[in-house]
């Protein structure tokens, strides 16, 4: 238990030395983020542990470093989820990817004992295609701006000692010992930090409003209900560095005058929930959370509240209702949570990533912080990148980075045989952007001008093989199910928009549907009660704007990308068909008929468009038109 700020700084100094020593010595870091875990990282960890123990190399007491022993650590997500499990070995810094249990003896034998690399496990630089020994050497790494994730690959996600050794909680100690709440708020305001949850509202203003609203009881809430399909930045952050978020929350609590914090984390993120709970426990044990923090008289407690899986609970008023134990339904604003939030008390609610920025701002100062990003959107942003790219996963770049840089320089461009068509940014509430937007700098204001939004930070790359109408239909299928059902435009509107989009993908749309769809989307956007409904039509409106030709093609009975089954038509090329009859025997619908030796024919009425015949035909006589 640390009882004063001085005691804390002494302790921190000691932890810094320990950490430095660890990095200089032989240590092995295994990434245990959800991605790597899913690919078997825990098995690799166990195998390493066993192998080291067998050879009497394992340092059992992790914090007493012995020269001849090897330290084995779990580290948080490194962002390269598609190449997991990932293992890093220090002091050389060799970074191994796709490690399997079978690779463990070789790693121990070569790298740990002799300091030699296992080259075949090196990460492939997506840009050059070459295997590179260290993560830091890849274009993937060089083109990013790791700031929130600055200790990538060499942090212990479960250890508060390691976090403190990395400078953690020093910002909190500094705030508590030398800054007034007003000074903290001024600093956050001056940093230009904007809400990472999507809207980009100036964080400092929110803090100030919460501070200034009179009331003895105030709350701080962390929004970790990351629900966008394809977005997992918050999960990654909570898993890899829970203390960073927690520290941000405690500082916020001090700044706004709150006594209690709630971290609302999706129950579907069991690892994040566990990590965060452990972080709370560990922080309490050290006196960094709870009663009389570091003897400064400031008391603050944090509790984890697991979300039950409703997307709408990412909306702040619905989230607060959910914490209160009520049905997760948004309510009209004003009053804003800062005025009347949890149980009617002034409540500060920020995103996970927003809180993670706070300790950095305090540590580095406003001027240094603002060196990253643009004037209007300072700092960095984590994005999750998905789609048929060479590399996918979590990235961190400064605001103002272009999509081209992300897609081509960081992620190495499109995967083999894929051609870029569009990029969907901001999840179901976001927009689809076409090729012409690739050089647009990503920041809150520029995206807004393009009718798009940063959203939570999901980037999905769409190829020429994907139908844009289908993309819109997919997202509306999501939002129509996740609408809380309260307001008419969202509940009924998203359903009807979905129905119309389905008419398109089924080839049953008529010209009038296009106008109805557009008008309906505009009504949903303007008239809905909360952000879910207000942004739900974005996938429709953006595709209508940039890919209207695809909609028109569907009315005419064509799906240009060949995705929509109902619009597919298989025909047999009479010139190529040898009349073998193999296709007819294969067809599960019995739609192909003909006479042996003569060209066969497909009955379009009966054809289920499964494409089996195409696969079977040895003469490539069956064509998709």
């Amino acid at each position, binding site marked *: 238990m640390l009882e004063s700020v001085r005691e804390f700084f002494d302790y921190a100094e000691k932890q810094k030395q320990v950490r430095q020593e660890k990095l200089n010595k032989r240590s092995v870091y295994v990434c245990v983020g959800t991605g790597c875990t899913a690919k078997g990282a825990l098995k690799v960890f166990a195998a390493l542990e066993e192998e080291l123990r067998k050879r009497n190399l394992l340092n059992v007491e992790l914090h007493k470093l012995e020269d001849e022993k090897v330290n084995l650590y779990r580290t948080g997500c490194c962002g390269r989820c598609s190449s997991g499990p990932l293992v890093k070995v220090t002091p050389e810094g060799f970074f191994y990817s796709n490690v399997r249990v079978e690779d463990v003896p070789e790693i121990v034998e070569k790298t740990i004992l002799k300091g030699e690399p296992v080259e075949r496990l090196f990460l492939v630089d997506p840009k050059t295609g070459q295997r590179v020994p260290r993560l830091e050497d890849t274009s993937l790494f060089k083109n990013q701006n790791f700031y929130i994730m600055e200790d990538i690959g060499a942090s212990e996600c479960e250890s508060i000692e390691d976090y403190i050794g990395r400078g953690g909680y020093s910002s909190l100690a500094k705030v508590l010992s030398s800054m007034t709440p007003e000074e903290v708020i001024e600093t956050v305001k001056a940093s230009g930090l904007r809400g990472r949850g999507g809207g980009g509202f100036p964080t400092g203003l929110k803090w100030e409003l919460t501070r200034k609203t009179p009331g003895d009881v105030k709350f701080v809430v962390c929004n970790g209900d990351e629900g966008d399909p394809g977005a997992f930045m918050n999960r990654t952050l909570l898993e890899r560095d829970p203390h960073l978020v927690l520290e941000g929350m405690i500082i916020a609590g001090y700044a706004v005058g709150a006594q209690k914090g709630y971290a609302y984390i999706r129950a579907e993120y069991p690892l994040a929930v566990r990590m965060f709970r452990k972080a709370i426990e560990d922080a309490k044990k050290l006196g960094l959370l709870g009663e009389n923090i570091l003897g400064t008289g400031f008391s603050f407690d944090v509790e984890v509240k697991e979300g039950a899986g409703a997307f709408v609970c990412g909306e702040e008023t619905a989230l607060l209702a959910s914490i209160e134990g009520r*049905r997760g339904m948004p309510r009209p604003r004003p009053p804003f949570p800062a005025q009347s939030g949890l149980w009617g008390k002034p409540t500060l609610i920020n995103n996970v990533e927003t809180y993670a920025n706070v300790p950095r701002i305090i540590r580095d100062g406003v001027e240094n912080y603002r060196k990253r990003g643009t004037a209007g959107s300072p700092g960095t942003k984590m994005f999750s990148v998905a789609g048929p790219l060479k590399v996918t996963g979590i990235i961190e770049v400064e605001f103002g980075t272009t999509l081209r840089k992300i897609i081509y320089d960081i992620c190495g461009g499109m995967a083999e045989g894929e051609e870029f068509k569009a990029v969907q940014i901001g999840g179901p509430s976001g927009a689809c952007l076409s090729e012409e937007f690739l050089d647009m700098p990503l920041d809150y204001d520029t995206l807004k001008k393009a009718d798009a939004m940063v959203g939570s930070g999901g980037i999905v790359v769409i190829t020429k093989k994907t139908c844009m109408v289908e993309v819109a239909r997919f997202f509306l299928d999501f939002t129509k199910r*996740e609408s809380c059902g*309260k307001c008419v435009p969202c509940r*009924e*509107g998203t359903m*009807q928009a979905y129905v119309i989009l389905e008419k398109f993908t089924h080839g049953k749309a008529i010209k009038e549907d296009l106008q109805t769809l557009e008008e309906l989307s505009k009504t949903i956007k303007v008239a809905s009660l909360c952000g879910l409904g207000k942004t739900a039509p974005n996938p429709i409106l953006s595709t209508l704007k940039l890919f209207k030709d695809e909609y028109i093609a569907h009315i005419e009975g064509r799906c240009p990308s060949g995705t929509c089954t109902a619009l597919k038509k298989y025909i047999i090329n009479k010139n190529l068909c040898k009349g073998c009859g193999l296709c007819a025997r294969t067809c599960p619908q019995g739609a192909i008929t003909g006479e042996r030796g003569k060209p066969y024919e497909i009955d379009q009425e009966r054809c289920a468009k499964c494409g089996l015949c195409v696969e079977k035909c040895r003469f490539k006589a069956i064509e998709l038109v």
Partner: protein
Amino acid sequence: MKITVDGRELSINPNARNLLEALREVGIEIPNLCYLSEVSVYGACRMCLVEVDGQIVTSCTTKPYEGMKVKINTPEIHRMRKTILELILASHNRDCTTCDKNGSCKLQKYAEDFGIREIRFQPMKKENGVDKSSPIVRDSSKCILCGDCVRVCEEVQGVGVIDFAKRGHETKVTTAFDTPLGETECVFCGQCVAYCPTGALSVRDDLDKLMEALEEGKMVVGMIAPAVRTAIQEVFGIRDEVAMAERLVAFLKMMGFSKVFDVSFGADLVAYEEAHEFHERLKKRERLPQFTSCCPAWVKFVEHNYPHLLPNLSTVKSPQQALGTVIKKVYSKKIGVSEDQIFLVSFMPCTAKKFEAQREEHRGIVDLVLTTRELVQLVKMSRVDLNTVVPQPFDRPYGISSQAGLGFGRSGGVFACVLEVLREEVGVVEEEYSTPMDGVRYANISLRDGTKFRGAIVYGLGKVRELMRHLEDFDIVEVMACNFGCVGGGGQPYPNDTKTRQFRAQILRSTMGIKTLVSPNENYYLVKLYEEDLRDEEARHHLIHTNYKPRRRYPEKDVELLPVPGDSKKTVKVCLGTSCYTKGSYTLLKKLIDHVKESDVEGRVEVLGTFCLENCGKSPNVLVDGKLLSEATFEKVLKELGEDV
């Protein structure tokens, strides 16, 4: 405060709750489907969109400010409103011609006002079945999810048996676990029906049963409740008619009713009896405060939520049941018609009365309860113009009533009537009233015999929950479940809002004003009834008193831990429900058992374990001889048991 609306400068009330109400007060009704002045702002229908300083906002959630520039008619707003209406209608069961709300449906009206002639969207009728398990019929295929019923049930009535379930397009209003409404703690007050803008909620239509009885040639006897006469005129464009009941008497005779009596006579009877009951209790200072028991929704509310307070309810039947019993048991003998040949129909403003008549203890008394709306239906069917019907007096002997008896139709009526009896018989020296909040009145009364008592008059069950916290301040409590009392009953015609209810209360006051009798004691026929038929106390008690039963969510099953045979004992029941258990009721129980066993009181004190006293907020709960001790401690229980124990 001055604002500009579509270029017109208007002076509005600066204290209005929101822009919608401010504009309503100056005669501009912004369309809305989920806004009720009586409950919290929900903001879900999005029909009340207006443009304020270039921004589209909902007027129900916007506060007006000086110099505000509002546009309520722009092509964009019209387009959006139409789209919203189309969206609602696409998912709505549009069987308008056979709907209970045909002609009084807000959605239907808007469809007409906005000229919706075609719906661009795919019809998606929601089929969740119709719940006919209670007098309140729920048809979710007509529900537009405005949530008015949910908020009225929760916020006004404090009952909260319905809420939203599921998400997206599957969202529906339902009870917990989709239990049929008839099996829930619903008190059937019908306030949800009163506020439902569509036909999703309606009252069971029982007119066919009347027709059947008439066809069978039974002697059909009617009785009309006070509040019915105030509301029925609205539908037929009649205003301030004080002889409405008499017109209805004449009308019902045309329909084949043999006799038509006035429920107000029953009210006189009830007040007379209840006044004596109260005076007795007051003298003995037992079972106080006495609760009125005229309102069946309130009675059911107590049975569900405050079973330990059932002894406080007056045991006098409600006017409907008391008069009904007199007609069936006394009158039938007088006229020499067998009880089962009389078909007794009561016309009520109330949905819960349908339930009351069906209660086990009241079976065979009132054969049919028809609401004001069903009576309206009967009038409409008959094609009779009530304006042209010559009023006829109610039949004797149960046809006259005092002013006070008629006053039962509005909040405060029962209290006033009981007080009139006491004034006649004991004398009132001083009376003083205060209104701490809307819907709650306090009274301080000094009687000539030196006793003083304090009364509370409440309407809206939600307010009762608050009152329950300081019950010890009162000796008599009048509760009417519906706002403004029976004039606002769930069976009254639409609209049934605050304004209309206030208006009805006014008509009732005028009607009372022309009555010559003031107190039930002056009611000649009532005096005669007492002299001739209710002289014998036991018989009287048997006829016009009743009892109640607890309706806890958990059946009353006690665990005998330290049983004592015989009657001369004290019983201690300790709640072992989850909430009480977590607050230490089990430890308390063990301590009590040990104490009883060790001390010399064994054999005189019985200890039982019980399950959920529905007072979880103040656990642990212990019942000592039926008296509830909340936040009980060992010492509290010992103190209650008394010194001899």
